[in-house]
């Protein structure tokens, strides 16, 4: 493993200076979705769960990125996080990563506007 680059799942193991912080990821998600409508979030969560079940990382990121591809300031933090960590991960790391995002979205239910 080169010192120049280490994958996030290696960072999860705690070898590098940077370590995947699930808490930060979740908080960024909450920040991004707290003002979205419950209906939209419910559909999004459903689609994301389907992709995780099949360990389809490509599809997961595709749906997520498509959803947050809006010029809203609240998405900035999550953009930053995704930029930092986006890469192919081993399944067990991806699961924690993806579910942290989903739980972040779900914990904002009831907080947004209902359409």
């Amino acid at each position, binding site marked *: 493993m080169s010192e120049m680059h280490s994958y996030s799942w290696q960072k999860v193991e705690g070898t590098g200076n940077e370590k995947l912080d699930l808490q930060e990821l979740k908080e960024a998600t909450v920040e991004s979705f707290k003002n979205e409508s419950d209906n939209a979030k419910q559909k999004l969560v459903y689609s994301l769960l389907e992709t995780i079940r099949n360990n389809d990382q490509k599809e997961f990121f595709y749906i997520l990125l498509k959803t947050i591809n809006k010029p809203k300031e609240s998405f900035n933090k999550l953009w930053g996080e995704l930029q930092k960590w986006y890469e192919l991960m081993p399944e*067990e790391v991806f699961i924690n990563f993806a579910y942290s995002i989903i739980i972040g979205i779900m*914990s904002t239910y009831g907080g947004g506007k209902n359409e």
Partner: protein
Amino acid sequence: MAEATEYLTQANTLKFTGNWFIDAGILGFVNLMEEVYGWNLEILQKKINEDEEKVYYGYFPFAYLCKWLSDRKQKVNSELIKKLKEELEKKTFQNTKELFDFVWFNFICNLFKELWIKSKSKLIYKNEAYDKKNKTKQTIDYKNTQTYLQKIGERENLINEIQDKHQEEIKKILKKRELKKFEYDDLEKLINYNNGSISSELRNSIELLKEKHLGIINFLKEEWENNVINQQKFTEESLFYRIPIDSGFYKNFLFFNNFAGNLKQKDSFYDAICFNFDKEEILKKIDKTVNKFLPSEEEFSNINYTKLSAEPLKKQIGYLFVYLLCFTHAFENYRNIGYVMFYSNDLEFSYKINRKLKLYKKKIENSKNANLIFNVTWQQIIDSLVECKSSWSLENMYIISYQQLDNKTQRNVEYIGVPKLQASILLDDAIRENLNKSISYRKVKEKQYKWQWLIQEFIKGKPLYPIIFGHVNLTLNSDKNNKISLRYGPCLYSLMVEANILNFKNKNNKKSALFSEIFFDSYKSLIRDIKEDIRFSSFYSSLIKQISSDTNTKNRIARELLNALKTKDKNAFLNVLLKDLNGGEMLEFGSKFYDWVFEKIIKNEISYEMYGLLLVMNLLKGGESNE
């Protein structure tokens, strides 16, 4: 001077050494003295401080052999014990040898009078007194052998005569089909036969036989009293006057050896007490001879380098062999269970608990539940800990048990350690009460289940999760006619205790804190963590009940979650859980609930299964309350 006295007191103090079989001996010594003289540990310690030699050379040998007799259901004259106490109180002795000899001849020999007489009157046939070369056997050879054998011969003739004349009647009395060799038991049966339905001729013959037998008894009694107790001069006839003792545990060891005469028995017992290995080679080594838990000298793996010698121990433990001899007395025999001893690193603590256990002996023996000994022991440990406030005794606690232990066999020897971690957790009342339950966890056949006692598994350091999983599975799949209700409390406590221990161990492993000071302090915080987790987790996990108001739906979700847990598939578990939460009747479980799922399941790689199972339990519990 004061310092010297203090030093002496310390040197005399009975305390554990850290070596469990020597410690078991020390405990056995205390038990022995209590049983025979009624002294508890405190009084015994006082007696040792007052006059150590009298205790070890006077009271001990007598007590040891008293116990030997009473263990074999022989009568022990309580007057003799009283007299010994009086005599030793008032008498002073020049040295330990004089003291020991005094006790030996006046009390020990007196104590064994009946048994010795019985052993000598057991000889029914005169010719059995001779060896192949027609010489009198060594064990019978003494100055009055001829008189003794003549009396035996006369009785033998009479027995033969009666047998010939009244064969049928005797068969009936002895309840035997055929009369072959007449045994001592037959003789006793015959002379004690009181039923009137025998012929007067036989009755007269039996009276005559009784007289002859009494004649032998009286003759032997006189010989013993005149030559052993009063004269004490029987150097060459020592073997004839051998005290008839043996032991399966100390086979052929010193005074138990069949070829040690009375005087040899006396001397070797004395040498064992004062650890005189110059005279007794056997005292030089500690091996299987003195304790069946040890290998024999040849089997010791380090024998190529050095022999395990008792010599260096003499300075530290002056009465080592006294303790080694008392090893078996540390154990209490429980019917159906075997010999059991509780051991910790503190004499007083171990003594107290073993004493309390004995109080429950009947209850333990009468119970059909084999776990009761463990249950009772545990209860006593907790009570005593609370009483003595000595939580440091928690380290190195063991329950040692065996069913048979002698030269050839060591049957069912068990050595159960009670780890400090588990023990300190169980000190908490709520945790202990909840774990002190048996729960069903597997179906054997219709209406019949396997049960497991949680506390026992916990103390043995075995995981509780599989048992709780089995129980939840059983509850979920039980049919309406034969409903098994969920034991929520014990399950909740088991899961939370286990989850926190796993996290605790994981944290400490990373910090390599095993040998640091924090390790012991963090025990306290562990209990606090467990209790806090129980409070929070039971609340947040219970929110899942709101997922649906329909019992069947909740059971379906529970089944799916349980299947995911069964295959240890975290992805599937979270997928089922979140999908059902996302598509449920309501979405707003509150961010705290999701935070809890995030913390305890998503972020948690160590113990997420326990929290997952807790969610399943709440789904089932909710179902029950709705019904």
